[in-house]
């Protein structure tokens, strides 16, 4: 069986989840040469409805293009977290936006305040998706940080490159802080 990695990005319409999925797919597909399929599911509302974007990355041609059991789940609101948490593959990674997800259904979830970071460190709420992408790549290693940065810069509107680079860095830093805090505690492995 070929290596197939499934990522689900979920939240509400307007948070930039579909763009985040496209960027992730381009990082893996165009910059790293993998097979990719990016799909989306959304409601008829322009903003505010449930929104979901999925990326499948594989070493061979992809048949079913959607996620069956996500290896990685990113949730940018409580509802998405509650809806999808139990779809995740056992041992999979759950990453949530601590700013918008007050209640964590599992202690294994990685909580990072993406929206807060975007607002305070980058200066714009709407870059929370890019902050989250940086953290996701740093936490999981699904795509290299170089590929991700190249993909981000190729997709975002001209003139916002610096801001997006800053957002990406902020996300990566937050993830690395989380990882070093985790290794400091000597948690039992099972």
């Amino acid at each position: 069986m070929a290596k197939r990695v499934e990522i689900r990005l979920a939240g509400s319409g307007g948070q930039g989840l579909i763009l985040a999925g496209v960027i992730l797919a381009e990082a893996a597909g165009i910059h790293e040469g993998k097979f990719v399929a990016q799909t989306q599911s959304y409601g008829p509302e322009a903003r505010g409805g449930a929104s979901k974007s999925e990326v499948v990355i594989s070493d061979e041609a992809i048949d079913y293009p959607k996620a069956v059991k996500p290896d990685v789940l990113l949730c940018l609101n409580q509802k998405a977290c509650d809806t999808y948490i139990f779809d995740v593959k056992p041992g999979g990674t759950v990453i949530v936006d601590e700013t918008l997800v007050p209640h964590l259904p599992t202690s294994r979830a990685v909580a990072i305040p993406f929206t807060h970071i975007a607002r305070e460190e980058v200066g714009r709420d709407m870059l929370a998706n890019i902050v989250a992408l940086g953290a996701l790549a740093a936490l999981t290693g699904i795509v290299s940080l170089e590929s991700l940065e190249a993909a981000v810069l190729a997709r975002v509107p001209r003139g916002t490159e610096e801001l997006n680079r800053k957002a990406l860095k902020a996300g990566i830093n937050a993830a690395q802080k989380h990882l070093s805090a985790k290794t400091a505690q000597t948690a039992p492995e099972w």
Partner: protein
Amino acid sequence: MINSQIMSHPVLLQGNEAMVEGALAAGCRFFAGYPITPATEISEAMSIKLPALGGTFIQMEDEIASMGAIIGASLAGVKSMTATSGPGFSLMQENLGFAVIAEVPCVIVNVMRGGPSTGLPTHVSQGDVQQARWGTHGDHPIIVLSVSDTWECFALTVKAFNLSEEFRTPVIILSDEVVAHTREKIILPNPEELEIVDRLKPTMPPEWYIPYEDTPRGVPPMGIFGDGYRYHVTGLIHDVRGFPTERPDEIVPFMERLFRKINQHFAEIQMVEEYLTADAEVLVAAYGAVARSAKRAVDDARSRGVKAGLFKLITLWPFPRRVLEPHLRQVRAVLVPELNKGQIAREVKRINQGATRVETLSRIDGRLITPDEILARLLKL
């Protein structure tokens, strides 16, 4: 089928965007449409790309006018296309019939979403399969192709234009919300890698031109408006000169030719893709996005010792009966998973004639059938 994916750098494209690339590669230079989810990206990309190529993009007042506009453009010699979803496709039916009877080449994309009516705008369906066959009134032949991935969105759009030009007929491409919105990596071929077909034009002096004269292929050369080949275009049954007729000795040859030009080329028109069918004991017949789930399910069934095979329909109409029939006599059962209540299953059952057992798997909640749903049924067949 165009199989070579040679050269150039890969790009990440949606099915909808790949269709635009395919249309432009095939020589499409006119697009008229009215935006509708989940087909809007086709209009959007056309509105950006066509003017740069010297083509024309028009956003019409509705889908009735859109269909009329592409017929007019095609009569003027320009390869033309429109794209819509269920509600718009319903509005196009009347003029679609006009394109059939006046033998005007054009391509109509229907990105299927949940229906009836405005239904489920952002969710997937395969509910328009029989409408594509019989939506316009009157007895008529039609070519309908189905796409299941981004590459096919490109390649089969090229093919659709080629078929429409070769046979002077409208060709419908049925896509669906999942295929349309799935982004995949594709490598767009060099234009010279592609086979591009253009309609036959009259070579005789204009005064000798008989616009609807029968030929061995059944497809008369098409005079272009403005080239001096003047003729009458009507939705009424017409004689070889294009004028309305009610004479049985003219009606019958005309209608027979309309069907014959498609029927005698079934082998070329009817495209399917077979996967592990040679020794299959159970068969999945699927198309569109569902074919992708089915392929995965066939692999999973094989790994559990069930000899499953996939018969993927690319041409939905005319239904590829002759290719499917031998399988029906060979397998224990056929499963037809679809995002409707069994519109293709109905066709499989019709030609089955008791040869095997045909079962349906329907999903009508706007979500794609999963590989596991198909696998569960395959293991029980």
